[in-house]
C-alpha cells in the first residue's frame, strides 16, 4: 500500500462521497458551536424546516461576548441577545450547551480538549478560525463559515477540496525561557502569514515531541496565522496521558483499545508531503511583534525594522503603514517599548500551564505603575484549578486583575477593550489593526514575556530574570 501521511489517513477515513469533478463529502465527528457564528445558521435551518442530524456530535459554549468581571451582568443588549439566542437554539435543536452556569464553560478551543471531546483521529469543525488548535491531538480540525455551520448541523458533513500537505519540521531544543508561543511566532516571522495557504501542516521534529499537550495546542492554534487550513501533530504518549480520565474521553478498557487505534495515526515512512520546510529553535529568542500582522515580529533583543530594509515595495509600504499605526520608529530597541496594558488570556495562551509559567514570573513582583494588567483563564476549569494552586493570589498580589473565563481582550467583543492609542502586550494570536479596540496597539508575546513586560513597564527578555523556570 502506498505510504500515507497522518493527514491523509484521517481524511480518507472520513470521505463519505467521492465523485469526479466534485470536492469530497467529508464526515464530521465533532462540531463545536459558539454564540457569534451560529445564530444565522440555526435561523437557516428553521427557515428551511430542517433539523440537526446528529445533535449528540455537537457541543456548544458561550465565550466571545461573555463579560469577565461578572459573566452574568451583560449590559450590552445585542450581546445579551446573542447569548440568549444560543440558549434558545440549543434547546430547540437538542444540543448540549455549556452555558454561563455550567462548570464546563470556557473558550471553545480550551474546553474541547479539556473535556476530552477532542480526540485523535477525529474530524473537528467550528465556526471559528482557531479550530486549528484541536489538531494538536492528531485530529483534522479547521474553521468554517456560518453557511458551513448550517451545513454541518443539517447533514453532519461538509464538501471539502482535499488540501495539500506541508511538513514543518521543527528541529532542535528550546532554551529555557523560550515558550511554544515563541516557536510559532518565530516560524511565522520567518516564513510569513501566507506560507500555509492551501495546506494542512503537520508539525514534526524534536522540539514538537518535547512539547506538552498545551504547548502543542499553542502551536497548532496559530497555524491559521500562517494561512493554513489546519495544523496537526501525531499523537504519542504525551497525548494519551493528557487524555486519560478526561470527562468525555473513552474510559478503562475502551481507552486502551482507543490507544491501539491511535497508534496507527502517524505519517508512514516514505509518505510524501507536497512541501517541506524546517525551522531550528536552538537559537530562538523570546519573540515580540512590532506590526499589525503576526509575521511582523522579531526577537526581544532586536530592533524595530526599517521599511527601507525590505526589497519588495509591497513589504516596504505595508511595514511603513504598520509602523505608523503602531507609532514606532525604525531602529527602536524592542526592550525600550513601553506598554500600557497587559492581557494574559485567549485560546492561544490561557491554559493552566500558561498561568503557572506566568505566575512564576509574577511571584513577589508588582505590576509597574501606570500599567493595567489582567489574567483571563481560558475556562472555568482552568480558573478553578489555578485558584486551587493559589495562582490567583500571586497575580492579585502582584496587581493583576483576576477575571472569569472568556475570549475577553483577544478581540474585545465584551467590555474588555484597549483604549485608542494605548499599547498592549498580549498573549493572544492576532495583532490586526483595531483587534483589541479601535486604534489600540497590540504586541503578541508569550505569557512569561507578558508578565515580565507588566512588571517592568516595557518589554524585557524574560531569560534575564532570575525567576525563570528551567
Amino acid at each position, binding site marked *: 500500500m502506498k505510504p500515507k501521511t497522518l493527514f491523509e489517513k484521517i481524511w480518507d477515513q472520513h470521505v463519505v462521497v467521492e465523485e469526479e469533478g466534485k470536492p469530497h463529502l467529508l464526515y464530521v465527528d465533532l462540531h463545536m458551536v459558539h454564540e457569534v457564528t451560529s445564530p444565522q445558521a440555526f435561523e437557516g435551518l428553521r427557515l428551511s424546516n430542517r433539523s440537526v442530524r446528529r445533535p449528540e456530535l455537537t457541543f456548544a459554549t458561550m465565550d466571545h461576548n461573555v463579560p469577565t468581571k461578572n459573566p452574568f451582568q451583560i449590559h450590552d443588549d445585542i450581546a445579551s441577545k446573542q447569548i440568549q439566542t444560543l440558549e434558545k437554539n440549543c434547546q430547540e435543536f437538542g444540543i448540549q450547551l455549556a452555558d454561563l452556569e455550567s462548570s464546563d464553560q470556557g473558550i471553545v478551543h480550551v474546553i474541547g480538549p479539556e473535556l476530552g471531546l477532542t480526540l485523535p483521529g477525529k474530524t473537528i469543525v467550528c465556526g471559528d478560525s482557531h479550530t486549528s488548535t484541536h489538531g494538536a491531538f492528531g485530529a483534522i480540525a479547521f474553521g468554517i463559515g456560518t453557511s458551513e455551520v448550517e451545513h454541518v448541523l443539517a447533514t453532519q458533513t461538509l464538501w471539502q477540496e482535499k488540501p495539500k500537505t506541508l511538513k514543518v519540521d521543527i528541529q532542535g531544543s528550546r532554551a529555557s525561557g523560550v515558550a511554544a508561543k515563541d516557536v510559532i511566532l518565530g516560524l511565522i516571522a520567518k516564513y510569513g502569514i501566507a506560507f500555509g495557504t492551501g495546506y494542512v501542516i503537520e508539525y514534526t521534529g524534536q522540539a514538537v515531541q518535547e512539547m506538552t499537550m498545551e504547548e502543542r495546542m499553542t502551536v497548532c492554534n496559530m497555524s491559521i496565522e500562517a494561512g493554513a487550513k489546519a495544523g496537526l501533530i501525531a499523537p504519542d504518549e504525551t497525548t494519551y496521558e493528557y487524555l486519560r480520565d478526561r470527562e468525555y474521553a473513552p474510559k478503562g478498557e475502551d481507552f486502551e483499545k482507543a490507544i491501539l487505534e491511535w497508534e496507527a495515526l502517524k505519517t508512514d515512512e516514505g509518505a510524501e508531503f507536497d512541501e517541506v520546510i524546517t525551522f531550528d529553535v536552538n537559537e530562538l529568542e523570546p519573540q515580540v511583534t512590532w506590526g499589525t500582522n503576526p509575521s511582523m515580529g522579531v526577537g526581544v533583543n532586536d530592533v524595530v525594522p526599517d521599511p527601507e530594509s525590505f526589497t519588495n515595495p509591497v513589504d516596504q509600504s505595508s511595514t511603513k503603514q504598520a509602523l505608523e499605526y503602531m507609532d514606532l520608529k525604525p531602529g527602536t530597541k524592542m526592550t525600550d517599548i513601553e506598554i500600557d496594558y497587559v492581557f494574559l488570556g485567549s485560546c492561544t495562551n490561557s491554559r493552566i500551564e500558561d498561568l503557572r509559567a506566568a505566575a512564576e514570573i509574577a511571584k513577589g513582583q508588582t505590576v509597574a505603575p501606570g500599567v493595567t494588567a489582567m489574567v483571563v483563564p481560558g475556562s472555568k476549569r482552568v480558573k478553578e484549578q489555578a485558584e486551587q494552586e493559589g495562582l490567583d493570589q500571586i497575580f492579585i498580589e502582584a496587581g493583576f486583575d483576576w477575571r472569569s473565563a472568556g475570549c475577553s481582550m483577544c478581540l474585545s467583543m465584551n467590555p474588555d477593550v484597549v483604549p485608542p492609542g494605548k499599547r498592549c502586550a498580549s498573549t493572544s494570536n*492576532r495583532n490586526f489593526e483595531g483587534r483589541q479596540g479601535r486604534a489600540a496597539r497590540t504586541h503578541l508575546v508569550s505569557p512569561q514575556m507578558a508578565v515580565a513586560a507588566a512588571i517592568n513597564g516595557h518589554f524585557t527578555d524574560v531569560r534575564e530574570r532570575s525567576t525563570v523556570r528551567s
Partner: protein
Amino acid sequence: MEPLVKHSGKVAPLDKVNVDTDQIIPKQFLKRVERTGFGRFLFYDWRYQEDEEPNPDFVLNQPAYQSATILLARNNFGCGSSREHAPWALLDYGFKVIIAPSFADIFYNNCFKNGILPVKLTEDEVDSLFQQADSSELTLTVDLEKQTVLDEKGNSYTFETDPYRRKMLLEGLDDIGLTEMYESNISKYEEKGKAIYQSVF
C-alpha cells in the same frame, strides 16, 4: 442564494495587502443575529472617522468610486477570522466580485457560499488594473461561464475556478439541498461504523 453568471460594474481599488476580516467587518458588529444589514459597517474603522463622519481619504468614500460593485484588492485578501459576516458585509454593501492575486482559504470559500465571486488574477494583471482604476473610472465585465474578465478597451484576462463551485454559483444552488441527495451514503457511512466516534458523550 442569487446565481451569478455575468456581472458588469464599476471597480473600487483597495490598495492594501493582507486585508483581514477584522478590517472588513470589525467585531463590534458581529453581534447581530441576522445575515443582513452589515453593509453600513463594511471597513468601518477605515471608512469612518472617530466622529462617525465618512473619512474622505478612504477609497469607498471618494466620489469616483461610488456605487462600485467590483472590489480590486491585493494579496491574501480576507485573512484572519473565519467570520462569514465579512462576505455578508461586502454583499450588503453591493460588491458582487472581488479581484485579487490571492485570497485566504476560509474567506474564499465563504464568498462562493454567498453569491460573491472571488477572482484570482496574476499580480501583474492586478497591477495593471490598479493603474487603470487609479487614473480613470474603470468598468469591468466578469463572465463566470467563460471565466474571463473584460475591460472596456477589449483586454481580456482569464481566471480559474473549480468546476463544482462554479456550477453552484452559476445556478445559485443551495449546498445543503445537494447534500441531502446523498442521504443514503451518509447513513451507510454512519452504520458501517466508519465514523469512529459514534457519540461524543
